[in-house]
Structure formats: C-alpha cells, structure tokens
C-alpha cells in the first residue's frame, strides 16, 4: 500500500565506500514514532554502536524531514539534523526552517543518513535521475553562503544544506546552514559533518508527496491561517520595554495566549523580545551574573525591535509558513545584508556580554551564519572569556596581548574572528565553554555555564523554572526550544488532550516557584508534544498558536490516513523520548550529570533585579519528571520493560 504523508523510505550513504542505498521503512515505525525526530531517534538508536567516536566513522549523521512536510499543512517546513553529539557525548539534534525540508521528501525519502568518512571532501547530489557523491574541492574552505551560491549556480533550483569553515575545522559549536545563513546550529553537528568530509547536500528532486485527505488538510490549514492573519496594530518598539517592566512588577500573571506572541512575531520577529525579555527577567545578563538593573532601558534601547525592522527589506517565510517571522536586513560593512538576527543572537551578543553596539551584532550575525557557528554558544564563549579575564584566569598572554573588557566592541569582534579562524585564543574557545574550561582548570570550570556541554540559551530559569527542568532533563540538554512553563500555557494542550494539566486564566507569580510536581507534569507534556511536532516537521511558533488553532493531531490523521487520538499521539511523543534517553545511557551518559549549573537556579539567589531572591529546586523537578515517565526516579534510566517495548519496534 502506498504510504501517505510520509515517503516510507530512507537513504543511507556510506561515505567510506561511496555505497548509497534506499531502504524501505516499515509502516509500524511511522505509526510508533512518526517521521522526522522520531524516525531519526529510532534509526540512530539502533545503528550507532556504543563507544562510537562522535567524529569517527561509526557516527551516523541523519537529515530528516517531518511527516506533515509538503502535505498542505501550515508551519510544517522544519527539518532536523541528528547524530551523536561531539559536544555533549549524547543525543544530538538541531532544528531549522527555510526551504530545505520538503526538498528531502521530494527525493523520495523521509531522511538521509550518512556513516563513514569520505577520503576527499564531497557533497551529495540528488535529483530524479539518481544520486551521487560529487567532489567538493571547489567549495571546501568557502563559507556557507558562498558555498551555497556556488552550488546553486552549478545546480540551478536545487536546495542546499552545507557547513561553513567552522564545521570544516571541527568546531564543536558549529552547525549546518541553509538558505544562505539559516542554521541548524546546536549540538555541534556541523563538526560531525566536517569530520565526514561532507560539505553539503544538494537536493533537486521533484517527487509528489502523497496524502490521504487533501481537502481535510486544507480545511484545517484555512482555520489556522485565519488566526495568523488577524494582526491588529501594536505598540512601537520602544514601548516593549515598559510593557516588560510592568510584567515584572505585577504580582499576578495572566496565562499567556499565544496570539499575543503571534502578533509580536508577525510584526517584528523574535527581536520583539529584545527589551521586553530583559525587563521581565527572562534574558540572562553578563554571563548569568547580572540582571535588568545592569542592562536597563537606556542600554537595551539600541536593540529595540524597531531598529531591526528599519533595515528589513523583505520578510522571510519558511516553507509552508503563513506568518513569516524572518527577514532580510541591509547592513553596513562588508557583507551588505544578513538574515534578520534572532533574539537569541541579539542577546548573546548584547546584554549577555554587555554590548550596546548593534552594527557589531549585525556583523557578527552574518560572520557566524557564514562560518556556520552557533551564535548562542559563541556568545557564551565570549562571555566566559570576559569573565575569565576579569578574574585573572586568563591574561593578555592568552589573548595575544589584548586586554578584554565587557562590552568592548573591538574586543568582542577580535574574539569571534579568532574563533572562526580557530587561531590563538579562538582555538581555545571554538569548541565551547566546557572544552575551554577543561583546559584552563577548576576556577574556569566554575564559571563555564553549560548543561552536559551545551550552553543554555537566553532564557533565565530563575524567571521560568520550566527552563531549568528542560535544560536539565532533555536528552539534548541546554535547549530552550524543548519546553518551558510559558510554552505550555501557549500550547493549550488541555483543550485537546485528556489527562494533561489545565492552566486557569491567571495565577500569582509566586506560585511558579512552588508546586514542583506541577512543573514535572507540565514538563512531561511539553516533551511529548514537542516530539510530536518534531516528528511532524512543525515549527514551535506554530505550536504556540494553541492546540485548537493549529490542529497538529488532526493534520497527522488526515495526511497519513490514521485515526489516532490526541492521547495516542502524546504517547508516541513519550516513546520518542524513551529512545533518546536510552541513546544517551547507551553512550555512557548519566542523565543527572546534565543538570543545569547553580548560577541558573539562584544558588545563591540574586540580590537585585527581576529574579532577586528566587531559587529553583530543579533536583526534585528532575526526579518527578523521570518518575512520571515511569523511569528510575534517582537515575533517570528507563526501565528494561519500557525500553524493550519501544526498542523492539522495527
């Protein structure tokens, strides 16, 4: 029977031997794990052996599209890179949009998996005539944007995913680029790609993607789009800071409806939060030691949202997205234009390192996108270097004679350019803060902020304890997109799923810092739902619309011809989590070692600012979370019975 929604096949490429095969995947796998993240978790759990070197032959790098990609649903243009992460030593995943996701399925497969190491730099080329590995000598050494331009010139109308110099130089904080600088940035999977001498995937297939009920999918998409297109006028950019301050001061919180964030995203993109998040206490300042009192309105004003759309020449929509949170910005200086920087980049190179110079942020955004380096990790590396210098752990001897000062644009530019080149102090920092700190000693390790190797994002768990939980328990730790208390409010899952916690219209802010079992219940639902979204290729921001407006479960049934209930899908999401957790344990990781550092927990509590006096008990939350999954409360290990149940599906 022809599969519907998914393509039913994967491509496997052995780069050591150049052997390429197409394998049929059983419908049972898709029914149990969906496509995308679930298909990758299933495939890599079974195929990467224990003891594999993340930068060696046995690691497998998987590029996957989602089950809903290309079916006529909306917000379903995400693709994922997956593999054994050289940064954390465990499950690695990176998520990206742009136009690459449907290109995978138009080659007739749901995923492309690479093992081995090519003797020479190559790229994979796929079209309807066939698939082959091409020599990549002419593009090796080029940045990701130049390489993509050159490859598209050679293969017009193809879609490209490629690494920049950072992946080639095996920087453990490098990722994979598409659409001239949109990145699947996290988990250091760019280094895995570079270690395989794989420069790019160039996809040019034209296959149709079959679906079960196209009319029903369209009906649901039209419902979703009506909500997206509702866009009343909103305040000017500078007013976002006072709004954030008001939210900080008020003791009572109105439960967030995602339509507000939708309005912000459609107007500005994620930069809408640049000042608001600082004022609310969401943005970490000065390597997690500072607060909004150190980065007040007049300092954050240079990065108010209107500054970013003033230079925006056009909006950027990922495939199948009706919202268009992205954009292309004209910039001064050598690059001329860049993808509009995201909130994460603006803060990582803004308040996190005390920098007010927004022209510098635009420059670093393009430099790092082209190099293919993760801006969140790079910002952490700079912050770490600044604090090390301040505390005398490193000196001008390390920096080639340059003193380092928080917020100095020339010092920041110097450090980042060195990291891209892997030169001098840049070589120390280019593998992230954990690796740098290990070389510098215990004093440095105390101020290297990471979760199991991955630097956490610009969202302070002292403000939203859900971040502390997800930073700590997710098999790919340190990741802000995997869950938070705020996200759960916006998902509104209780409107569609039986048995998940219901949030009322409002609550006292102080309650966020109590009631640990509630955090774990919310956390489990977050993790399961996100796995369903990632198995579908759905965008987190689409999910934020709320489960009644974006009907992920109904789309899946209409695409695949299934009749699963929302509870069935949440169980699928939980099963995917089991595989990822078991993957980590097989590769020698103890889940409790990914716990977020004390600085993010208010241990000791801050004495001023939005999160003054707040402490988060993440240890109890982690144990509750694992227990709710049916795993060992102390260790986070799935039981043998649970593991066998999901691992036996083939």
């Amino acid at each position, binding site marked *: 029977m*022809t599969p519907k929604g998914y393509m039913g096949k994967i491509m496997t490429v052995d780069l050591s031997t150049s052997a390429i095969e197409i394998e049929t995947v059983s419908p049972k796998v898709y029914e149990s794990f969906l496509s995308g993240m679930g298909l990758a978790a299933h495939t890599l759990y079974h195929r990467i052996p224990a003891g594999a070197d993340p930068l060696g032959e046995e690691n497998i790098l998987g590029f996957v599209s989602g089950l809903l990609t*290309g079916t*006529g*649903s*909306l917000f379903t243009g995400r693709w994922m890179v997956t593999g054994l992460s050289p940064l954390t030593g465990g499950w690695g995943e990176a998520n990206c949009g742009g*136009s690459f996701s*449907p*290109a995978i399925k*138009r080659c*007739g497969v749901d995923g492309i998996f690479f093992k081995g190491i090519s003797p020479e730099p190559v790229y994979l080329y796929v*079209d*309807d*005539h066939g698939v082959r590995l091409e020599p990549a000598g002419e593009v090796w050494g080029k940045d990701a944007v130049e390489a993509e331009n050159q490859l598209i010139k050679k293969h*017009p*109308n193809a879609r490209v995913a490629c690494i920049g110099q950072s992946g080639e130089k095996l920087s453990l904080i490098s990722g994979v680029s598409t659409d001239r600088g949109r990145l699947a940035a996290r988990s250091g999977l760019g280094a895995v790609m570079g270690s395989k001498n794989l420069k790019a995937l160039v996809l040019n297939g*034209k*296959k*149709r993607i079959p679906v079960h009920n*196209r009319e029903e*999918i*369209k009906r649901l*998409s*039209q419902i979703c*789009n009506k909500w*997206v*297109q509702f866009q009343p006028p909103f305040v000017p950019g500078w007013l976002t800071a006072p709004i954030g301050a008001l939210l900080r001061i008020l003791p009572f919180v109105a439960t967030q409806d995602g339509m507000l964030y939708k309005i912000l995203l459609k107007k500005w993109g994620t930069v809408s939060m640049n000042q608001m998040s600082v004022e609310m206490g969401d943005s970490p300042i000065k390597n997690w030691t500072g607060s909004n009192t150190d980065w007040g309105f007049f300092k954050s004003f240079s990065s108010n949202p209107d500054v970013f759309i003033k230079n*925006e*020449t*056009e*909006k950027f*929509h*990922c*495939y*199948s*997205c*009706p919202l*268009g949170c992205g*954009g292309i910005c004209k910039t001064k200086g050598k690059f001329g234009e860049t993808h509009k920087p995201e909130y994460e980049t603006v803060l990582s190179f803004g308040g996190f390192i005390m920098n007010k110079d927004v022209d510098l942020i635009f420059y670093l955004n393009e430099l790092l996108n082209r190099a293919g380096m993760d801006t969140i990790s790079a910002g952490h590396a700079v912050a770490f270097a600044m604090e090390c210098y301040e505390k005398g752990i490193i000196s001008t001897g390390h920096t080639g004679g340059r003193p380092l000062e928080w917020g100095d644009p020339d010092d920041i530019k110097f450090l980042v350019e060195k990291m891209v080149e892997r030169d001098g102090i840049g070589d120390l920092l280019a593998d992230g803060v954990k690796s740098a700190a290990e070389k510098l000693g215990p004093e440095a390790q105390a101020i290297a902020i990471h979760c199991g190797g991955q630097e956490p994002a610009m969202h302070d768990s002292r403000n939203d304890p859900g971040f502390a939980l997800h930073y700590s328990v997710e098999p790919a730790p340190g990741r802000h997109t995997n869950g938070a208390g705020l996200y759960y409010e916006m998902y509104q899952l209780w409107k569609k799923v039986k048995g998940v916690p219901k949030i009322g219209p409002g609550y006292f802010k102080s309650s966020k810092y109590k009631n640990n079992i509630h955090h774990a219940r919310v956390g489990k639902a977050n993790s399961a739902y996100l796995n369903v979204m990632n198995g579908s290729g759905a965008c987190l921001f689409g999910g934020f619309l709320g489960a009644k407006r974006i009907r992920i479960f109904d789309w899946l049934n209409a695409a695949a011809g299934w009749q699963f209930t929302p509870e069935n899908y949440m169980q699928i999401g939980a099963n995917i989590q089991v595989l990822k957790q078991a993957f980590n344990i097989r590769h020698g990781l103890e889940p409790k070692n990914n716990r977020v550092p004390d600085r993010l927990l208010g241990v000791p509590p801050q004495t001023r600012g939005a999160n003054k006096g707040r402490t988060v008990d993440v240890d109890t939350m982690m144990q509750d979370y694992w227990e709710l999954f049916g795993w060992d409360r102390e260790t986070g290990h799935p039981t043998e019975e649970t593991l066998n149940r999901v691992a036996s599906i083939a």
Partner: protein
Amino acid sequence: MAYTISDACIGCRACANVCPTGAITGEKKEVHAIAADTCIECGACGRVCPSAAVLDHFGLAFERIPKKQWDRPGFDLKKCMSCTICLDSCPTSAISQSLLVKGSPHLFPFLTDESLCIACGFCATDCPEEAVAMIPRQDTKPKEPAEVA
C-alpha cells in the same frame, strides 16, 4: 501509480523533452517508456504526444493540446499568505517570488516565464488557501507578474 506509453508511440521524443523528472526513455522512432517510480503524473507528456500514446492510470489516452492553449497559474494576492508552497510544488521551478504588493514587506509568487510552465496544476492543487487557479495563457513571451485570477 504512473502514466504509461502504448504501442501507438512513434518515438518522436516530444514527451521525453518535456518531462520534468526525466522519467521517459527511448530511442528515436522507437516506442518510449515511462519509469513508474519517477513519473509524477504531471500530464505534460500526454499534452504533447501527437499519437495519443500516453495513457493515464485509468488506461485512458491523453489528447494532444497545443501549448498556447495550455492553462497557467493565476495568483490571487489578496488570499495569498506568502507560504511558498506553490514555489516548492512546481516541478519546473517556474514560480518565483518578489515584493509585489505595495506597502507589504512579504514576498508574493509570480510565474517567471510562461514557457517554463507545463500546466500540471500542482501549484493550484497544493495551495491551502485556494489562492492559485489555472487560467488561460496570454502568450508565450515572459510578461509582468501574473494578475489576480
């Protein structure tokens, strides 16, 4: 499911030249064949065949239609949500996007070159908002971006 070619084929190569996926093989003046796994059922081969040799998946023969009588997409930019689904669905990459609506920073689709369009209608089929309709061609030269359908 795929289209097939019957023995009525005279081997004129018209179908192979128009096929967007390279699914059709055959020597000149010999009966051609369609690779089932590669055929995307766009119908272009059927529209150009002079001998009614292309059969759809019900076994019914296509009738030849002169290219200037083929349809082409018209885009309703009021309904369009700039989602790029139509760009991706086009097997000949004939649809591109640009700043077409005054005052809007969103990009909107247009047919770059009418001669690239093979009238498969996938853009219209795939558009979730029914913002694309197949309409009669104007002529075969490149024109201004398509008007509202």
